[in-house]
């Protein structure tokens, strides 16, 4: 379909409207702004970290994780404690056996010493 002449003309003129366009000039203080942005980016790391850590959800999650870890450590310790109790009982028996032997020996020695005079 043939377009009306005036529309074709408008389209052609619009298509050519950027011909001879000159460059847009940047802000003369662009370098200063760039430096400021770079410095803000550097110093912003710790403040961003701090603000992230102090978010309620992060703080609550951190406390929960610490509590969970504490309970796990506590439960593990109790298990190992009961195991170690049994082990220490065995050790006690061994020790007492050793000492009882020693005491018998001592006793024998004493009795021997007592009997001598």
């Amino acid at each position, binding site marked *: 379909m043939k377009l009306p002449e005036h529309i074709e003309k408008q389209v052609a003129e619009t298509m050519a409207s950027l011909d001879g366009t*000159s460059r*847009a000039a940047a802000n003369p203080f*662009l370098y200063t702004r760039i430096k400021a942005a770079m410095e803000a980016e550097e110093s912003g790391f710790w403040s961003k970290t701090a603000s992230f850590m102090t978010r309620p959800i992060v703080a609550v999650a951190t406390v929960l994780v610490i509590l969970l870890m504490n309970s796990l450590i506590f439960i593990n310790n109790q298990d190992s404690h009961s195991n170690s109790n049994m082990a220490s009982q065995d050790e006690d028996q061994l020790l007492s056996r050793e000492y009882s032997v020693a005491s018998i020996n001592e006793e024998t020695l004493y009795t021997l010493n007592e009997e001598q005079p």
Partner: protein
Amino acid sequence: MSDQELIKQLKEGNESAFKTIVEKWQDMVFNTCMGLVQDANDAEDVAQEVFIQVYESVEQFKGESKFSTWLYRIAVTKSLDHLRKKKRKKRFAFLQSLFGVNEEEVIQDPEFHHPGVKLENKEQAAVLFKAISKLPDNQKAAFTLHKLEGLSYQEVAEALSTTVSSVESLMHRARGNLRKILTDYYQKNNG
């Protein structure tokens, strides 16, 4: 001082070399960003990002292409990223307004007037920019670099990391799409 000398000094962390680079290429970068994002404030923000990227990744510049080509590449990528983010934000705001979460009205972009356009072409150029904003990203980039920055097809191909024949094809399709958009526009507006 030559470009190579400036880049060498920038790689060594010389601040004054960076300042010289910014001052030498700021208009070129700003004009490219301006043509693509079609907003002076946004273009300045994107130009800032471009130079920060240059400062941070100058080590990656091996000198295989011209420094200006590398700058164009960064400027185009950053500008298109900016447009994508803006579109996403606008879509989200629109959805929020539909559900009544965001009571603020979704504001349409105002007409863009490039400061370098000849006075007699202002109105038509604004219509053309509106049409350019509707083009797909690669066509938009090729058309802007060629028309606003006056790059040859060879230079556009280098900046977009593609071949000259691809740029020819992009430009052909861009012109076709623009003609179609403009024809529709004038048919509607001329009754």
